[in-house]
């Protein structure tokens, strides 16, 4: 076999849950290790192979000046760069700071605010460098991660749909929690791919996979209001794991100002 393609896994502002999904691919781990050279993956091994890398998986959002420099260096070393998870694709939950004065937040949280050196925003990887592909979710779906690696290795397009969660629910035969129970659910404006986790357990989708390809968040917000959700809570619903994703950010803005 020719030289194995090299894989690097990078971390920015994040909880590590998404890169952990790679280790969670337990049944496939040996096959993956056989097929790719894991060149940089500090969560798994301190052994580091110098770049460049064929595939870089980038977890986390950009929150410091150092991050801005580092992601550019990573981009230069990476043939194919994939942002993984809500932090890397939508700024993550930490993007709620984008809607407040960051110094006030630091003062409220840290005993020594002067030790903290941060940007005023948390932003997605694509806001700083070109990104070749994105995996959504908080955390990502390990099946989609495997599919991504599998597709790259076989020179085919990854099967990662960008339509709504509703399609996934209906294919699975899940009863709609919004229509049948009156539970406000972000599924109609949220990208599918989680494996139907929350609605499959009678819970509303809270949008951790971020906006669909063409999200009508205004109609969604009107429906939530009709179901009794207060304006402030509509804003909060869009201000979670993907608070800084375009459609969710602007809908949150509209309701926060209202």
């Amino acid at each position, binding site marked *: 076999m020719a030289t194995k393609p090299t894989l690097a896994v990078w971390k920015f502002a994040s909880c590590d849950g998404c890169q952990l999904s790679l280790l969670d691919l337990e049944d*496939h781990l040996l*096959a*993956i290790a*056989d*097929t790719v050279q894991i060149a940089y993956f500090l969560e798994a091994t301190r052994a580091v192979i110098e770049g460049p890398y064929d595939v870089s998986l980038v977890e986390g959002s950009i929150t410091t000046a150092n991050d801005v420099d580092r992601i550019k260096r990573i981009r230069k070393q990476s043939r194919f760069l994939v942002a993984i998870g809500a932090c890397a694709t939508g700024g993550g939950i930490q993007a709620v700071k984008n809607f407040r004065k960051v110094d006030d937040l630091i003062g409220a949280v840290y005993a020594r605010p002067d030790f903290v050196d941060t940007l005023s925003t948390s932003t997605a990887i694509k806001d700083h460098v070109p990104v070749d592909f994105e995996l959504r979710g908080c955390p990502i779906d390990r099946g989609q991660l495997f*599919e991504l*690696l*599998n*597709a790259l*290795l*076989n020179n*085919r397009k990854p*099967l990662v*749909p*960008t*339509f*709504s969660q*509703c*399609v996934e629910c*209906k*294919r*699975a*035969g*899940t*009863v*709609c929690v*919004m*229509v*049948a*129970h*009156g539970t406000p*659910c972000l*599924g*109609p*404006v949220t990208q599918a791919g989680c494996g139907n986790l929350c609605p499959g357990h*009678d819970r509303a989708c809270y949008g951790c996979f971020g906006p*669909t*390809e*063409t999200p*009508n968040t*205004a*109609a*969604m917000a*009107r*429906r939530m209001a009709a179901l009794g959700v207060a304006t402030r809570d509509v804003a909060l619903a869009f201000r979670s794991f993907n608070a800084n994703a375009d459609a969710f950010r602007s809908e949150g803005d509209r309701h926060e100002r209202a």
Partner: protein
Amino acid sequence: MDPNEPGALPSAVIDRDGLDALIATLAARGYQVLGPRLEAGAIVQGPVGGIDDLPEGWLDVQDGGSYRLERGAGSALFAHVVGPHSWKRWLYPPKQALWRAERRDGGFTVTAPDEAVPRYAFLGVRACELAAIAIQDRVFGLDAAPPVTDDPPTDGAAAGGTFLDPGYAARRAEVALIAVNCGRAASTCFCVSMDTGPRATGGYDLALTELIGDGRHEFLVEVASELGAELLGTLAHRPAETADIKAAEAATRRATAQNRRAMVPGVAELLEANREHRRWDEVAQRCLACGNCTMVCPTCFCTTVEDTTDLTGRHAERWRVWDSCYSLEFSYIHGGPVRTETSARYRHWITHKLSAWHQQFGSSGCTGCGRCITWCPVGIDITEEARAIRDSQGPAR
């Protein structure tokens, strides 16, 4: 006497025990009996082992974007109408394996999936659902009705079953259909205006009408096939009397009167003539483009093909999965998707369903079941959208 002619055989009456025995008989004959079950706050289709599994006494109260179960006054087993599932889930499953391939020295071999064909008995099939199955029979080339248009057929389906779907055909051939005539309609029902219900007029093996009240709980049984006659023969039954038939007719009249919604007449020509209309932009303000209407529609049949591989690329599979014309990918061709605007996607769906379907398959694609109204998260109403366009044309024609 042709048993395939509805009403050709005298109808009979069975009681609750008789229905229980019918389910047992079907199971004993190797059928997996699927019928209405209470699950997750809705009445869905699932395995039924006896009448105790049926949603006794439950009603489904439906409106645009809303479905709620309520306790009815009595112990009826079929007082509900249609739920979020449709029978296409079983006849045309959301995910179907098409073939598998293995790479072998210098070449590859392809094998068809050899899954056993399931043998289903559908219990509680409503008239609108029989109509939907008949429509899908034509779509999948089983029963190709000649198109009503003068235009020459442009594809295999319209040309008369050139492209038979073998998976659908195999599953369909094994199905036993136990219909139930509705004695009640939801507010979302409009079968009367589509001429598909509420009473089943054929295409079933047995049709039941629940006769309940005045101290009795029985079912009028009508037979429309040899299988149906055989099944009835195994059950304790008595001949139907005039009073039974009148009670069943009263149930049908009740459901008919409860059809509150109606499709505007001439909708096929209406939509054909209004490809450009401000209503498309207006509905796009409300439409989430989520695809729910297409998923719950008992006749929507679109799928996409997905190829999978293992990591080594030695093993590949091709799958067919339900798709929706509301996704961008659906209309993606070289250069990009054709229908980028939600207005174009909504127009495409409703116009295909109510208008272009006639040219393609010789009938409307809509059966008036109302699922797309109920299960639309924002309650967009196909009858209302058609009516709005009709009303914009001036006085009703």
